[in-house]
C-alpha cells in the first residue's frame, strides 16, 4: 500500500507544482512586458511621449491584425506561412485598383476577395489534397512572392492615391490614429468569434482533438479550412492598411509580418490559457513586439540586432510553453 501511496503523493505534489508554474507563466509574460516598458521609459528619453506611444500603436496595428488571423490557424492547429506575402499581395492590389480609378470601397472588397482566394487555395491544398499546412503555405507563399514582384516589376506603386485611402493609414480621429480603431475593431471581432461563438468553439475543437470533434459530428474539414481562410483574410486587410500607411504599394513590405506575426502568437501562447493561442494573448504579444521594435529603434539598434532579439524572444516563448504545457503545434 505504501508502495502505491508514495507515487500518488508525488503525483499530487507534481500537479500542484505544475499549476503554480502555470499561474506564474500566465503572468510572467505580462510582467516582462511591464518591465520592458518601464525600462525603456526610464532609459530612453523620447520613449514615454504621447506621440511615440501613438506611434507604437500605429506600428503594431497591422501586426496585431495579422496575428489575430494567425490565432485562428494556430487554434485549429494549422500553420499559415504565406501571411506575409498575402499582406504584400493586397498591399499592391489595392493601390493598383485605386490608381486605375476603382472606388475605395470596391478596392477594399478586392482585398477581401484576394484574401479569400488565397485562403481558399491554402485550405484546399491542406484539407482536400492533404498537404500539411506548414508545407502547403510555404509553397503558396513562394508563389505569392513571385506574383507580387512580377506584377509590379519590383517597384513601388505610388502617386494618385485618393485622400480617403491615405486617411485610413495616416489620419486621426479625436487625436487617435484611424489604424488604432481598425486594430481594435479586428481584435474585438476576432475575440468575439473565437470566445463567444460556436464557430470559434469548433475551431478550437478541431485543433484540440480532431478525432473527438469529428466523432461528435463536427465538420473537421470545414473548420480547418475556415481557420486558414481567416488567416488570409486578416492578412489581406492588414495589407490594405499597410499600403495606406506607407502611401504606396510595395511588393516586399509584407514579408516581416510572417515572423513577427508568428512571434505575437507564440508570446500570446504563454498567457491566458498557456499552450493555447488566444486572441487576447496575441494582442499582448503584438504589444510586446511593438515595444521592443520601437525601443530598440529609439536606442539606435539596427534592424539586424532587432532580428536577433526577436528570434531569441520566440525561442524563449516557445521553450517556456513547450516545457510547461503539452504544446501541440503540428
Amino acid at each position, binding site marked *: 500500500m505504501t*508502495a*502505491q501511496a508514495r*507515487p500518488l503523493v508525488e503525483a499530487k505534489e507534481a*500537479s500542484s507544482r505544475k499549476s503554480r508554474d502555470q499561474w506564474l507563466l500566465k503572468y510572467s509574460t505580462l510582467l516582462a512586458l511591464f518591465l520592458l516598458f518601464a525600462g525603456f521609459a526610464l532609459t530612453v528619453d523620447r520613449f514615454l511621449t504621447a506621440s511615440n506611444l501613438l506611434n507604437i500603436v500605429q506600428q503594431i496595428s497591422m501586426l496585431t491584425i495579422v496575428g489575430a488571423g494567425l490565432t485562428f490557424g494556430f487554434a485549429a492547429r494549422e500553420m499559415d506561412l504565406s501571411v506575409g506575402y498575402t499582406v504584400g499581395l493586397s498591399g499592391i492590389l489595392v493601390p493598383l485598383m485605386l490608381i486605375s480609378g476603382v472606388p475605395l470601397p470596391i478596392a477594399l472588397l478586392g482585398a477581401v476577395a484576394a484574401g479569400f482566394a488565397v485562403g481558399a487555395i491554402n485550405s484546399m491544398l491542406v484539407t482536400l489534397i492533404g498537404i500539411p499546412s506548414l508545407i502547403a503555405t510555404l509553397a503558396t507563399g513562394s508563389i505569392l512572392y513571385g506574383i507580387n514582384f512580377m506584377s509590379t516589376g519590383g517597384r513601388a506603386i505610388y502617386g494618385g492615391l485618393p485622400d480617403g485611402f491615405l486617411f485610413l493609414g495616416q489620419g486621426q480621429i479625436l487625436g487617435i490614429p484611424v489604424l488604432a480603431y481598425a486594430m481594435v475593431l479586428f481584435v474585438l471581432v476576432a475575440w468575439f468569434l473565437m470566445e*463567444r*461563438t*460556436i*464557430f470559434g*468553439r*469548433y475551431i478550437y*475543437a478541431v485543433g*484540440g*482533438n480532431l*478525432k*473527438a*470533434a*469529428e*466523432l*461528435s*459530428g*463536427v*465538420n473537421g474539414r470545414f473548420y480547418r479550412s475556415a481557420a486558414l481562410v481567416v488567416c488570409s483574410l486578416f492578412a489581406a486587410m492588414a495589407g490594405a492598411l499597410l499600403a495606406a500607411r506607407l502611401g504606396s504599394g510595395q511588393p516586399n513590405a509584407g514579408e516581416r509580418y510572417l515572423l513577427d506575426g508568428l512571434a505575437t502568437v507564440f508570446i500570446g501562447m504563454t498567457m491566458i*490559457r498557456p*499552450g*493555447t493561442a488566444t486572441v487576447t494573448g496575441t494582442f499582448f504579444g503584438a504589444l510586446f513586439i511593438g515595444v521592443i521594435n520601437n525601443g530598440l529603434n529609439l536606442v539606435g539598434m539596427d534592424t539586424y540586432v532587432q532580428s536577433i532579439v526577436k528570434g531569441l524572444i520566440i525561442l524563449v516563448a516557445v521553450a517556456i510553453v513547450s516545457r510547461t504545457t*503539452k504544446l501541440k503545434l503540428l
Partner: protein
Amino acid sequence: MTVRLADIVMQYPGTRALDHVDVDFLFSEVHGLIGENGAGKTTLVSILGGSKQPTSGTIAIAGVETVLASAGDALAKGIAHVSQEGSLVPGLSAAQNILLGDEPRLGLGIIDTRALRRRAAELLDRWFPQVAIDLDAAVDTLPMADQKVIEIVRALRGEIRLLILDEPTATLPAREKENLWRIIRSLPPRGVGVVLVSHFLSEVKALSDRITVLRDGRHVTTLPSAEVSEAQLVDFMLQRAGKTAVAIGENGDGARAAGETVMEIADWHVGGVRVDRFAIRAGEIVGLIGLTGAGHFGFARSLYTGEGFLSGSTVFAGQPLARPDARSMKARGVAFIPDHRMENSLIGEWSVRENLAMVHPHAGAHAGVLSMGLEEKAARAAMALFNVKAHSPEQRIQDLSGGNKQKVSIGKWLYGAPERYRLMIFVEPTEGVDIGAKREIHRHIHRLAAEGTAIIVASSDLMEVADIADRVVPFVQGQAARALSRAEFSESRFIAAMAGDPK
C-alpha cells in the same frame, strides 16, 4: 535446452503487469502465448527480448541464470524479437534489409554490394530454401508474407535459439498466412524455438506444441496444444476467479416492448468484418461480444462513421442510405460513444462545460452566439443527470477520475436534453470505470432504452453485456455469428460462441 522465466514480477506505477509468472520456452517447440489485451503478453515478451527489465524474478538460459540488459544483449544470447509493427526500411532492397547494420564492407565504410547480395541469398537459402523472394526488389513492394520472412531471416542472422514472433500474421491476407505457418513450423526441428504471440486462436492451436495462457498479468496454465480445445482456451483467457457463471441481472426479463426497426443492414463488408444481416429495433439493447480482434468494435464504430466501408446495403428508419458518415448519422439521431475516451471523445485541456457542449453547442447559445450563463446551466443539468463529480463545470476534464470522464463522454450527447436518439452506440461504455459509476451508466442505458432508443453495446466485459443486453451477437474472426437470446445467456455459452463453436 530452455529459456526459463521464474517468478517474474513487473510493477508499473499503480498496476502490476505481471504477477509472479513462471514459464519455460524450449528451443525445440513452437510455444503459443495467448491472453486478452492487458493480460501481460507484450510485457512478457519484452522481458524475454531484453527490451524491458522485470521488477523481480530470474531468467535462466540453458540452466544458467542471466540478465538480459537490452535487446542487443538478448540477441547476443540467442533471443531475437520480431515485433508486430515491422522494422523493415522501405525503399531499401530485401537483401539490404536482411543485412541492415551488418553490411559487408570494402573498407572506408563502402558497402560491398555484391557480397551483400550473396550473403543475403545464402541466409535465405540456408533457412528457407523452399521460399523464392526477389532479393533485389524494394522490400515494401513485396507481398506482406515475404516481408515477414525477410524480417525473420534478418532476426536469424546470428546464433539464434529462440525467436519471438509478435502477431506475425495480423497484417497478412488469408492466402499468404499458410506459407508463413510452414516457415514457423520448420524452425524447431533445426534448434530454433518459436514464441508465438497471436490473437488468432485457431492459428495458435494449429502451430503450437504448447500453449501458455495469461490473464490479468497472471500465468493461468501451460499445456500441450493437443490436449486443449479452442473453447477451453477462451475459457482460460476470460474466466474470472471465483465466477463460474454469468449472473443474469435483475432488470431485463425480455419484457421491454421492442418497437419498429431502427437500423437494418445486409451483406456488409467493412474493414475486415463481414456481416450478412443485422437489425436493431427501438427500445432494444443489443450486445456485441468477441475476442480482441474479432471485429465487433470496428463494426459498432462503422455503423456511425462508415470507416472502412466497402459494400453493403443500409436502411435507417425506413430510408435507404449509401454509407454512414458521422455527420449524417448524427443528423438522423444517432449517438456514438467511443472507447478510449481521451483519444476519441474528450479534449483534455477543456473544461467539463466545454466538453459537454461539444455535440450540441446550440443548447447554450442564441443564434450561434454562446451564452456563458446558458452553457453553465446546461452543463450543470447534464452533470446532475449523470452525477458527475467535479469542483465546478470549469474544472479541466483531464483532472477528473476515469468514471467521471466517461460520464462526461456519454453526457455530452445528452447535454441540452435534445429529443431522444433513435440509436445510441456504445463501445466499452465502462472501460476503466469504478463499480459505482458502472452501475450508474448501466442505469442510464436502461432508461434510454425504456424511452425507446435502440442501443448497441460492444464490450469486452461479458458480465456487463449479460447484465444489460436483450440479445447478444458474438463476433468470430471478423464474422457475426448467430445471435443469442436472453434465455441462452451464460458464460459458457458466450465463450463457446466467441471461440466459434456453432452450437
